[in-house]
């Protein structure tokens, strides 16, 4: 069972989005602000990243957005990373995180 999912996205303007999802507690911290999240939200999040490669490298362009995700499940910690090169459904992740708002 996944304990936590930690997401860090740094965009080209050096703005940082930091999200920590505590899966068993159905809570999430987005830029240090606490939100209650539904089980469905967590399932959607896991579904979005479960087919991702661990490393997408980076594009030949610069000033790209960079993402790092750490999934902690038991003793395992799995990382996903990319800079300027993204999984096909990367926008889905951002839309999902955008649903966390006041």
């Amino acid at each position: 069972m996944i304990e936590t999912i930690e997401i860090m996205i740094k965009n080209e303007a050096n703005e940082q989005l930091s999200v920590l999802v505590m899966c068993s507690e159905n809570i999430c911290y987005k830029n240090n602000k606490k939100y209650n999240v539904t089980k469905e939200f967590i399932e959607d999040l896991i579904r979005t990243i479960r087919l991702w490669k661990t490393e997408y490298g980076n594009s030949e362009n610069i000033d790209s957005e960079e993402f790092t995700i750490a999934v902690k499940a038991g003793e395992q910690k799995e990382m996903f990373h990319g800079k300027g090169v993204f999984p096909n459904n990367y926008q889905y992740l951002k839309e999902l995180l955008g649903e966390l708002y006041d």
Partner: protein
Amino acid sequence: MIEQCERYLDCKNYLRQKIATLIDVFVAYYGEENRQEIEEKFRKSLLIAYRNPNTNSRFLSEIKNIHSNELFANLFAKFPSIWTQDDLFEFHNLEHYNIFPLTYFQRFYADYCLGENGIIKKYKEEALRSIQSWIPEFTQEDYEEMIQTQVIPKKYEHLRAFVKERLLELADLSNPIREFEYHFNQAKSILKKINPNVTIENFSQIMEQRDIQILIKYAELLPTLVAEYKSRMQEYEVYEQEEKFANQLYNQLSNEYYLRFIEENIDLLSEADRQKVEIFKGNLNKSYVLTSYTGFIFKKLNLDSPFEAFSEESEKVLNGPNESFWKKDSIINDRIRFFKENGIDLGDDYDAYLRSDDAKRIWPTFSRVQQFIESKVRLWNEFNNAYYTSLPAYKEVRQEINALNLLIKNDGFNASRYVFKEIKGVISSNIVRSQDGYELFPLVMIPCDSFDGKLDQTIIHELNHLIETALLKIENNNHCFMSYGWDFHDRKFNQEEEPLVDTMVSDAFGQKRLYELFNETINEYIAQEIHQLMLENDQCIFDTKENTIIAGNSYYQHMFFLIRDFFQEFRKEILESRRNGNIEIIWNKVGKENFDELNHLFAIFYKSFPLETFSLKKSLENHEDNEQTRIYWELVARRDAILEKMRNYSMMQGGFLQTEESPKKKM
């Protein structure tokens, strides 16, 4: 700050108003003798500053806060008291005056002055007015009867249930008292500053105190403050409407494309599900009528569906011996849920489903799932295209571009500009017919969504590309060859616009061209010098002097160490060679072989440090010796050797260095 917000809100017009300033800046850098050329480059181009309208609220809320704070400060300056902005208005601006603690006090105090009888009298008058607006024949006597009996008068018994409910509610005279107490409780946070134990009953004891009298004054002046605020915000109404329109369009199109997604995959739904889809089709605001199974299979277009757990890719993860258990669990859970939703509930043991004939009968095939995924991706792409190209601001620019009659219809201004935010500025060269044949006519596209202090540098970087861009030749009346500094590019004319651009995968990072990195690094170096010059002349475009960032804006800066000395020593030839495709100028000065060798160092650097410039920098600062620093110092050594060869070559060209091979020596 308001001015800065206004620049962003009206970015398209604002940038164009700054063209004269920008021309002067470039002329100051390149020399007055190049003014005509620079002016022509600007004249024969289109500057497009654009923004996503759903960022309007970001800029508007800054403006609202500034105006509100100014009005609050004026109020406190005129009538000082113990209360602070936080006390009376919390963290809200005047847009949300309805929930200010001061507003609640205002309502409480107005009713307090009326007394209980006055409160009830006012309530009854308002209630009767309200009732008569929907039942004109309802009389005062009817209302009094209803209050007395708490029963609807017989002659109104035919009315619909919800109307009768409302009538009885308005006959409940405890309502205004409850509301009075509610307003007091909301205002208590302010009053506690005078008396921590304040109640409605003992309020009269503090009423005459100076600060309460000022509080009452504030409450009286609040409507004036709100009116002044609304008057100031009037000029920004157009941006509020723009964002409102964009949000409505987004919702409307989202529903339309969601329906299309369902219809393209309707075979996945039962007859009962499909009937609800028909209702949804009749009114796209009624997505709530869809069955839970429909919602289970058809998540939003921009979310993965549990149905996709049956894809071939998911199957590989399930069967992969090294795949994480949480990935497999997630896929299995979706599959089990799919079967349960289809009426096959064998518990949570996945093996049971693998053995079940019922499950096998409805097990989705790889090809069906692939078809589902492709449908979703295609429709999401179509949605992006439809949405962004329907925005009024987009259409306005599109009309301007169309009027230019560009010969390459895929001009680069499309939905992907809005979707791929990692692309900062872009220059897209294009061609128009002229009296003498053909002319270059680039589009310079600058997204203005972020207050990050880097916009001016982005603009100058792209405009320097504009200055350096040249049309070299046209072949067969349909194939153009262009230069951007030392970079070369060719495109064919086409009159057919792409029906849809790919908004799912960025195509901006295509094949690297021979001198691309070298070229961009020099361009950035020049742009930083120009930006610095602009600041020294007290000029800014979108940024302010305080927040503008020249350096540290770009990855190219990490490679400045390769070109700094080269640029300073051969500045004149570098600048000359970069305009109008005259790369031979620098080749002749430093030797093409040496130039190419320097170019090669960029490829090495980039291959070695695509992600790790931060750790390299740290290692260098700490004087460490590791693999990264060794690569770096080797590059430095090679750079220095190449520079020495360039100097020698340059001197030989000038006849200053005599060698065995020198004709002068042989003589």
